[in-house]
């Protein structure tokens, strides 16, 4: 038998769950969560109330008579400046802007990143440096030149033009992300693929892309939420019939005529924010699963 001294410490170190440290951590976390959730709560309950009930004033009380009328109005009949057919037009505009912008920007940026990481061509360092400068110039500076450029191309005010703008402005940061990701993949993998007779595109599509699922998910989250939430480019580069959902939301909320329909405004706001929320929930889970499944490690 081993000679264990039972005086003094032995065995597993005891840990108490309710330490001062834990209490502080949990209270801070709870406070922060409440701070963020209260406005959301107010929005949801307000959107479910009728106008008379809202005028009674207690914004925290749950609806006495829940109604989905405001939601229906926000979607299909609220006035958004020119027309009064609700947010639905803006929703579909946003879909038509976001989907191609996300696909093109990620596709092009991942090819850029792959070329920069694995095929060091002449001038690749300079190219990368220029791209990085692009990432740090505030994009407001480039709006006016961009307007002129689109006008010269004859696509100013169209969805195509806006998709192009989103694709271009997403390029520096996405290229950086992909380049850095690809440089973490073992170089010997790339060499092995070359010995196995794969070329530039073969290695990209059959080796690199399947290995970059976690990075792709991050890029989709980043781009989809950014582009969906964009307001500035939407106003500047399109005509009213192509306004994205965010711009229409602004128009609904800021209408100066008639009574303020707080319930409709709240419903419209939640509807607009629903897509990014959904993306976080769905892709967040995919992301965690992707890492757990060991998508990268060999």
């Amino acid at each position, binding site marked *: 038998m081993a000679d264990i001294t039972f005086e003094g410490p032995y065995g597993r170190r005891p840990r108490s769950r309710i330490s001062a440290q834990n209490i502080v951590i949990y209270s801070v976390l709870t406070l922060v969560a409440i701070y963020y959730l209260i406005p959301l709560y107010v929005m949801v309950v307000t959107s479910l109330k009728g106008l008379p009930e809202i005028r009674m004033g207690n914004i925290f009380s749950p609806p006495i008579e829940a109604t989905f009328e405001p939601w229906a109005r926000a979607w299909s009949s609220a006035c958004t400046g020119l027309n009064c057919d609700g947010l639905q037009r803006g929703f579909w505009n946003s879909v038509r802007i976001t989907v191609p912008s996300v696909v093109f920007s990620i596709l092009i940026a991942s090819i850029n990143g792959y070329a920069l990481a694995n095929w060091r061509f002449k001038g690749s360092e300079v190219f990368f440096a220029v791209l990085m400068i692009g990432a740090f110039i505030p994009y407001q500076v480039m709006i006016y030149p961009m307007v002129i450029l689109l006008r010269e191309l004859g696509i100013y005010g169209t969805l195509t033009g806006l998709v192009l703008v989103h694709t271009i402005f997403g390029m520096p940061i996405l290229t950086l992300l992909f380049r850095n990701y690809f440089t973490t993949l073992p170089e010997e993998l790339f060499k092995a693929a*070359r010995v196995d007779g794969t070329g530039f595109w073969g290695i990209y599509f059959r080796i690199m892309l399947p290995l970059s699922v976690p990075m792709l998910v991050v890029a989709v989250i980043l781009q989809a939420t950014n582009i969906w939430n964009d307001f500035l480019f939407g106003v500047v580069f399109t005509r009213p019939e192509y306004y994205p959902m965010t711009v229409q939301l602004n128009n609904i909320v800021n209408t100066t005529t008639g009574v303020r329909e707080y319930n409709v405004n709240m419903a419209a706001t939640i509807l607009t924010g629903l897509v990014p929320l959904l993306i976080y929930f769905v892709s967040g889970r995919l992301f965690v699963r992707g890492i757990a499944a060991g998508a990268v490690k060999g």
Partner: protein
Amino acid sequence: MMHQTVAATETSLAIRGLQLSFGAIQVLKDVNMEIGRGEFIVLLGGSGSGKSTILNCIAGLLDITDGQIFINGRNVTWDEPKDRGIGMVFQSYALYPQMSVRGNLAFGLKNARLPKDEIARRIDRAARILQIEEYLDRKPGALSGGQRQRVAIGRALVRDVDVFLFDEPLSNLDAKLRAELRVEIKRLHEKLGNTMVYVTHDQIEAMTLADRIALLRHGVIQQFASPDEIYRRPVNLYVAGFIGSPAMNFLKGRIEGGDFLFNAHRIPLAGYDGNPRDGEAILGIRPEHTTCTLGNGGLSAAVELQENMGAESVLHLSLEGQRFALRTSDDTRHPEGTRLSLSFDISRASLFDPQSELRL
């Protein structure tokens, strides 16, 4: 050995005047090698000596700065890696993680548009030789290091090429597995008779595997010879010090009338393999070519430390203020401070010129 006799007749791989620079840094300076068919060549050298660079040049993974490379008499200097007739095995295995073992083996063959039944036939053969049949449908992530390296060797094997390139294939494995796979690679070579170029920094691997070793330093081949020759007759001080563990002992002195003078001692050079001339010289003597007897006579040293390894032991001595290692199979224990009188086997010693560092 059988393949060595063939080697003399036919060149499998030739490297002529190979130079490679990364920008202003010259990594390889005029590398020349003629390698016979079926030869097992080991490129040996310290880290950063240019071993992998040579291998990548042979494979076509690096664009060379100058020189020529021939494989099977064909000038492949400007060819793509896949067209050179080489298979390559990497230190990190470099298996495609998203593909099964079978997918990994088939990948290159599919790219070459080989017929399905031919692909299946080659995979079966490689799997049988390497005993990886059971894991063919597993992903690399579900294999151990040793199994992964077998698959990586298999991927070179299915290509059915004449020249195999190995870049430190065993360095990521633990010592026991390394020793096992080393023997297997040797067997594989005996069985297939391919030309192999094998990069390692491990001199045991080099000594046991190679038909010939090319010892590299700063991108220059110091000596390209059989393991025996490199061990017995190192061409310069660097080679002498690199090969052997513990390293060769060096004594500074001078040669006078057929004797080596070290401090007050006169060591006769009768039986030395070479024609040393009088003058300054360094005597190199391996720990295993020194014998000792208890006592204080002649060239005598004091024991500082004894390392016992079971079958043999290494004595670390102090010889007139200088460190000296001695290897013996005698299992006598020598306490610190014991005085031993040494004698050298001069027929297996080396003499070097202290200026040029070349063997005399």
